């Protein structure tokens, strides 16, 4: 068997995928892990080549400098007025300053936590547009810049007022320049989830909040009292951000059993990209809570590396498998078990990992509780105990018969 695993490692350039997939069914855990690791590595390399080819711009790096434009309630961005550059003092316009500061915090987060230089990894300029449209309850990324509305004042206030929303939009750019997750169905829901996860992490990092101190809400700072909603979305409890006559109930699922089968159309939200993102959102939350400490550290790195290893059409299963693999590569069994458990709780089982598989959970780097965990050994012990009890009962029955 060790000869086969050595063969797997040195032949990972020419081992056909169908053989690797067969190896995923092996009863030997180390063989399954080697095959999974090889399959993921080749997929990642293929994806990285595609993303690199698509993002060669030839432009000079811009040191991630920020520039803010005022749309003055218009919708045609080329008509927006330049109002603040990287070296300018604060504006008298709070929206301008909030966008400027939020983009800066998000930029600094990516640099300090992941050593990523802006959206494209090469210092891409950060252009923000504020006061877009009238009563515009939205913010978006258009492939080049981030655009923010003022809200209608009834349901929402100025969208620049939410650091997690600003981080959410910038992260769409990061996703575009890395995995390139297409904005439809499961890849689109993953795209949305990456933005919610890293948007939330930007806020947590700026506030120095640990996972158990964070609110795990997106857009909590921009809802009005009249809306009767906690936020746009909750990573901790998808489906609970709001529930009233005005908005209806938050339709986000927190488990694959409740996956929303929506058409890939405009009125189907492209297959529910803002809906089904609840499932991977919850998986990240659970992972972060299980590992403990600051969510942007171990869990954030697992997720970020997994984003870089993903491709345009990655499904939930693919991403889950990648996070499991990355957790093992970057950290250890404890973190890997946390990821395994999190995905299982949202209804996704990691490929090639048998239910109740054996693993020693050691003290994680984040200082979590140490416990030993051997599912198969525990089951064997239970069977042995029951077997002894049956033998004892049989002896008693034989004794009773003998006395008659």
């Amino acid at each position, binding site marked *: 068997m060790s000869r086969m695993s050595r063969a797997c490692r040195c032949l990972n350039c020419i081992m056909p995928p169908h053989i690797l997939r067969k190896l995923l069914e092996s009863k030997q855990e180390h063989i399954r892990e080697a095959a999974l690791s090889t399959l993921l590595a080749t997929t990642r390399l293929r994806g990285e080549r595609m993303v690199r080819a698509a993002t060669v711009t030839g432009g000079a790096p811009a040191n991630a400098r920020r520039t803010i434009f005022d749309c003055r309630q218009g919708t045609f961005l080329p008509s927006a007025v330049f109002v603040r550059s990287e070296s300018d003092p604060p504006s008298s316009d709070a929206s301008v300053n909030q966008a400027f500061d939020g983009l800066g915090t998000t930029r600094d987060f990516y640099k300090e936590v992941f050593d990523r230089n802006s959206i494209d990894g090469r210092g891409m300029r950060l252009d923000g547009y504020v006061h877009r449209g009238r009563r515009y*309850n939205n913010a978006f990324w258009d492939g080049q810049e981030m655009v923010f509305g003022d809200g209608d004042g009834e349901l929402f206030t100025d969208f620049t007022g939410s650091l997690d929303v600003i981080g959410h939009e910038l992260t769409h750019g990061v996703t575009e320049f890395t995995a390139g997750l297409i*904005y439809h169905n499961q890849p689109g829901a993953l795209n949305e989830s990456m933005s919610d996860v890293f948007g939330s992490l930007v806020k947590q990092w700026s506030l120095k909040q640990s996972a158990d101190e964070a609110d795990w809400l997106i*857009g909590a700072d921009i809802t009005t009292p009249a809306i009767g909603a906690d936020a746009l979305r909750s990573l901790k409890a998808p489906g609970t951000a709001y529930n009233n006559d005005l908005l209806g109930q938050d339709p986000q699922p927190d488990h694959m059993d409740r996956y929303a089968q929506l058409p890939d159309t405009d009125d189907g939200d492209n297959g529910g990209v803002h809906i089904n993102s609840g499932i991977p959102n919850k998986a990240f939350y659970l992972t972060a809570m299980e590992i403990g400490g600051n969510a942007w550290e171990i869990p954030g790195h697992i997720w970020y590396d997994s984003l870089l290893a993903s491709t345009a059409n990655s499904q939930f299963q693919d991403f889950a498998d990648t996070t499991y693999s990355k957790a093992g590569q970057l950290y250890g069994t404890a973190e890997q078990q946390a990821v395994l458990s999190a995905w299982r709780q949202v209804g996704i089982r990691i490929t090639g990992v048998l239910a109740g598989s054996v693993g020693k959970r050691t003290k994680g780097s984040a200082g979590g509780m140490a416990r030993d965990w051997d599912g198969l050994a525990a089951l064997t012990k239970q069977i042995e105990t029951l077997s002894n009890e049956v033998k004892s009962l049989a002896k008693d029955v034989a004794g009773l018969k003998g006395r008659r």
Partner: protein
Amino acid sequence: MKITLATHGGQIAAMRLGRAPRVLNADSLTAAQKDELARLVAAAKRETETTQTREPRGADLMTYVVSAEDEKGTVTLKQSDSEMSPAFSALLDWLESHLPAK
């Protein structure tokens, strides 16, 4: 003329899911308002017909579908945030201020 406006996508896409389009019946408008509406629809239609449409790039974009129905037939116009023409934007602005509340 009957106008419907359906709005999809964006950060609040989940809140809009399954909502019926908003409807404006031009019978409730003054003669001047009817004329203005007809002019705005015609201008937006001209701009939309001359503009190349492609799947918009980006995320959290909202999409707007305006249907104008009269005795001559139905005109349907669709644009998203990142590719909005000035005429379509003007039509949307007018509709937002005249349509019944959301």
